[in-house]
């Protein structure tokens, strides 16, 4: 990202200390370039969300920043330290909850937390106190004496995060923390992230759920093909794509034809019998649209109002040539 774009996105306006910075971060596996010159600048106490399709390199990024694997190039600082030169300094400042459950399945929930307490040198008393507190906070008291094999997906993920928090890390990496969770567990997880940030922790969150990034992140970066194709707040990203529209679906091709002629240059889909009419979604505009349909006796089967959301941004930025279905799928949902 050039300095002008950086200023435009407000990245240099804040002077708060940085939790994570990277310039020109590169990683390749043989011929395959996974990360191709990534720049990061994440302020302390914020949620940064890395968004991208499967295989975009999100996990690789987390693995590099959390000292699991080395980068091929670039300058990286996590909590002020270089992960390659001083991995232990980075490790003592971070906590990682990866995509795959990182709990000991042969120990009980409580024993898992005590294991972390031992590895963090909390001492027996403090370790027990901290384990009890985390079990309480993550609603695992009843499950404390059981092994994770008996836990639901949401409980396992909560235990996972609780283990990460035993060492009171200042920076937490959450790699797709809600994938595979039911809606209630997802919302619980979101609340956990909000509480963490309220406590001053920096969260680096990767996700493929756009609403998750929209809900939680202060800043969002979209990773595609090894490069950051966009970065900014959710609002900034949404502003980058064209405005909303109303989608009309007709019962017969005749109605579609007449409506299309009346509205002029609009995007139409003859197979689905739909029209997308540009609109800001206001009641006034909708009323005039409905009045016109009535007046012309054009019979529309269904109407949906679509305001741009992160899905649109995501598809616009990550769409592959020759994949026109992406745009169609986003329009299915109604945002009234």
């Amino acid at each position: 990202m050039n300095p002008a774009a950086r200023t435009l996105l407000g990245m240099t306006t804040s002077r708060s200390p940085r939790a994570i910075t990277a310039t020109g971060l590169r990683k390749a596996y043989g011929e395959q370039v996974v990360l191709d010159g990534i720049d990061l600048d994440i302020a302390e106490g914020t949620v940064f969300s890395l968004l991208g399709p499967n295989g975009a390199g999100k996990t690789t990024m987390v693995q590099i920043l959390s000292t699991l694997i080395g980068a091929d190039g670039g300058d990286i600082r996590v909590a002020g330290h270089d992960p390659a030169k001083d991995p232990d300094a980075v490790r003592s400042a971070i906590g990682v909850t990866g995509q795959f459950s990182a709990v000991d399945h042969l120990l009980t929930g409580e024993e898992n937390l005590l294991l972390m307490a031992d590895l963090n040198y909390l001492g027996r008393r403090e370790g027990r106190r901290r384990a009890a507190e985390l079990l309480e906070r993550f609603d695992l008291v009843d499950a404390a004496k059981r092994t994770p094999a008996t836990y639901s997906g949401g409980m396992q993920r909560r235990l996972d995060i609780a283990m990460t928090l035993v060492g009171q890390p200042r920076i937490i990496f959450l790699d797709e923390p809600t994938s595979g969770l039911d809606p209630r567990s997802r919302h619980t997880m979101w609340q956990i992230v909000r509480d963490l940030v309220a406590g001053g922790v920096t969260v680096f969150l990767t996700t493929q759920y756009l609403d998750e990034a929209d809900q939680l992140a202060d800043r969002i970066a979209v990773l595609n093909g090894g490069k950051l194709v966009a970065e900014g707040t959710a609002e900034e990203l949404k502003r980058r794509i064209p405005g909303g529209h109303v989608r009309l679906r007709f019962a017969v091709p005749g109605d579609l034809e007449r409506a299309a002629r009346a509205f002029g240059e609009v995007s139409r889909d003859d197979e689905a019998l739909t029209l997308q009419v540009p609109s800001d979604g206001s009641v006034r505009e909708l009323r005039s649209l409905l009045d016109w349909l009535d007046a012309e006796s054009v019979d529309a089967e269904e109407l949906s109002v679509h305001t741009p959301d992160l899905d649109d941004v995501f598809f616009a930025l990550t769409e592959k040539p020759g994949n026109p279905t992406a745009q169609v799928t986003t329009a299915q949902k109604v945002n009234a």
Partner: protein
Amino acid sequence: MSSTLSRPLSRPLSDSMTMLRRNLRHALRYPAMSISVLAMPIVMLLLFVYVFGGALGTGVGPMGGAGGGDTDYIDYAAPGIILMAATSGSLAMAVAISVDMTAGIINRFRTMAISRSSVLIGHVVGCVLQTLVAIALVTGLALAMGFRPNATAVEWLAVFGLLTLVTIALTWLSAAMGLVCRSPETASNAPMPLQFLPFLGSAIVPTDSMPTGLRWFAEYQPYTPIIETLRGLLMGTEIGNSGVIAVAWCVGLTLVGFLWARAMFKREPRH
């Protein structure tokens, strides 16, 4: 961070103890693996003494013709089978470490500011302790079945010492094998040669009775001097230079296993 400064200097030791406690807790809670470790040498003992013992005993003769007197076949075979108890732990080691490496928890350990070697040391020490218990139980059973060694207290101590060395060497080797394998299933097969090799030595029958090629191999493979040393200490047969060779093998294999395992553990996790 202040907590970094307050950490004890003995971090590797303290972390290894934590990891050892973790592994022993696993073993106590899920004893299936420990039991199967124990079952192998016990089955061997029963099989070779009660089933094949009569026939083999006749072939082997009193103490394989080495000791003289009216000794039972069990007195010939027991030292070798006690050694098999030491080898049987290697399977459990390779599987346990492979299970750990393919589970998510290892990446948690790798991103924590802990001593990296503690993960391996915890596994190895835990496995060595379990194997020593198995060795003690198999020795006890052999004694109950009529094994009559004439070893002095010092000789027993030497037996215990040598078996410990053997166990440490085999455990490090199988730890490395477990780290190389991509799944616990392959890891459970990898240490097979370690368990099978005693049969191609003097464990069950004297090497004199084997065809030339095999005999040459049997005499120079590491298990034969180890078995001959154990037999000598327990039954008073000739040890010669077997003791020195046995200890050298153990130290050498431990070094190879340790360095190999450490190199494998340092590799970046697979993606």
